[in-house]
């Protein structure tokens, strides 16, 4: 029996990313975790080294599954002062493209703009996503979530305390 070739459409990926964005903007972070695999990692490279390797160069965020889950727990708690009360965010996702399918993994890229509003200050994060998705039990999930900023620095944003 031959293995069925993985079929996925751009629309399906778009729907997936739009729904993920909704969960993040609505701070439904526990439900958001279900959009990731158990072994998922989350990376935000340094602004001056977008192609860096997290094992040898300094990033802004390099979460393994443990840190990622702790991050969610912290953000939903009362002691993440940077996000208490929560910032308001609004994500715009576009230019969604399927870049390759190898076995059960799907590489996708997209552009993002995330507006963060906090105490009347609006800050903009712009960049691109380079994600690796898998299909598990007919559900798409992200195994590697990478948000690469197109900023020279976090000035004036100051922090990345939201999930990009």
């Amino acid at each position, binding site marked *: 029996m031959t293995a069925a070739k993985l079929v996925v459409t751009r629309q399906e990926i778009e729907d997936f990313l739009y729904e993920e964005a909704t969960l993040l903007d609505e701070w439904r972070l526990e439900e958001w975790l279900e959009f990731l695999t158990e072994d998922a990692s989350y990376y935000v490279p340094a602004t001056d*080294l977008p192609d860096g390797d997290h094992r040898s160069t*300094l990033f802004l965020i390099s979460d393994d599954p443990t840190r990622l889950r702790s991050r969610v727990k912290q953000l939903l708690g009362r002691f993440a002062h940077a996000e208490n009360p929560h910032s308001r965010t609004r994500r715009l996702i576009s230019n969604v493209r399927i870049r390759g399918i190898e076995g059960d993994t799907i590489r996708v890229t997209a552009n993002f703009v995330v507006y963060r509003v906090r105490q009347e200050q609006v800050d903009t994060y712009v960049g691109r996503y380079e994600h690796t998705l898998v299909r598990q039990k007919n559900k798409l999930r992200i195994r590697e979530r990478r948000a690469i900023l197109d900023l020279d620095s976090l000035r004036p944003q100051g922090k990345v305390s939201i999930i990009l």
Partner: protein
Amino acid sequence: MDNIPLEGLIIDNQQDGLFRVNRQAFTSQEILALEKGRLFERCWIYAGHESEIPNPGDFCTRRVAGRPVILTRGDDGVVRVLLNTCTHRGAFVCREQTGNAKTFQCPYHAWTYNNRGELVGVPGEDAYSAAFDRRERSLARAPRMDSYRGFIFISFNPAVEDLLDYLAGAKEFLDLVCDQSEVSMEIVQGSQLYSIRANWKLLVENSFDGYHALPTHQRYMSFLAEIGGMNMATATRLRGEARNLGNGHAVIEYEPPWGRLVARWAPYFGEAKRAELEALQKRLEERFGAEWAYRVGQTSRNLHIFPNLVINDIMAITVRTFFPVSPDYMEVSAWALAPREESVEDRTLRLDNFLTFLGPGGFATPDDVEMLESCQKGFANREVMWSDISRGMKRAQPGTADELQIRTFWRRWHELITGTPTVQTAGQRAA
């Protein structure tokens, strides 16, 4: 509300044990202008680390004390900090962040400089009179530059004391950091460039403030406990000391709750690492003797070198510098420092350790940023004129959660702003 005279900005009441800072220090444009003249143009200012430009021709560009500069190693191997402005009509001669070059050519009129900063090419040079001498038109530099253990400093004050004298007691703490390597320390690639909507001096205070560790960083401490990151021997206290190092520098040194790659084990490093770290500590003892080795491997230190260099040797080592753009906005640059010879596995562990706390995406720094921005917003209540920085003023040996280290900064700040020396001298213990 009238501006109060500079002498009155600090209340230093040693008799009663009260220290107050007038909050105009954080909000006044006039005071910022004075700081630019009397601090940032008088003192030694951190420019970068030699490891960032390891090979001849290497360069990186950045702003230091508000000036765009090129940190470069010439083909002669010599490190220079060149001011990034063409000596013809002013344009940047280098517009790239980092790279390797034999020459810098200004795109405007094609004047060309070698990587020592000498002017080597002027199109149509015959148009100039005999008085024109290209040797006088080299790329400019700060009048003074020097380095210690790879840390490069510049000064715009030609008469500033020698760097080693200036560093005073801080030298010891740079040694404690750098002795973690048998070879040398290096800045890891990848910079954390961010900003804070607050006065730069709030970050000085925050960077070595032990008192805020538990309330501000509660979520980090919970995380650390959950993942087995705590060294349980010292889990609940930041026992340690604060010290005045002279010239406005100060430090807190303590036994930390977290693990250190050099060389303090915590459970989440895994059992295999325990023996490795013990061996590393033994090696330190062989090199330095028990006492220095204990300090190097088993303690953490939050060091501030006046006016704007922080080196926090905590669960990883960060080098952090910052500069005021306006009274309520600063730009911060931070890097990771590590032993050059560290294994790939240890480097990864170290960087993971770093990011759990430090940097704009960590579990701690963003909360500091939030606190400082909140203070700056609170300053709009001008009727609350004074910040209190009195903790531990009557103690014989102030600890990390006292505020001696912060008072040390302010006393030196006040000296330079007003032009009057205080009674305190280097190493003086009191208050």
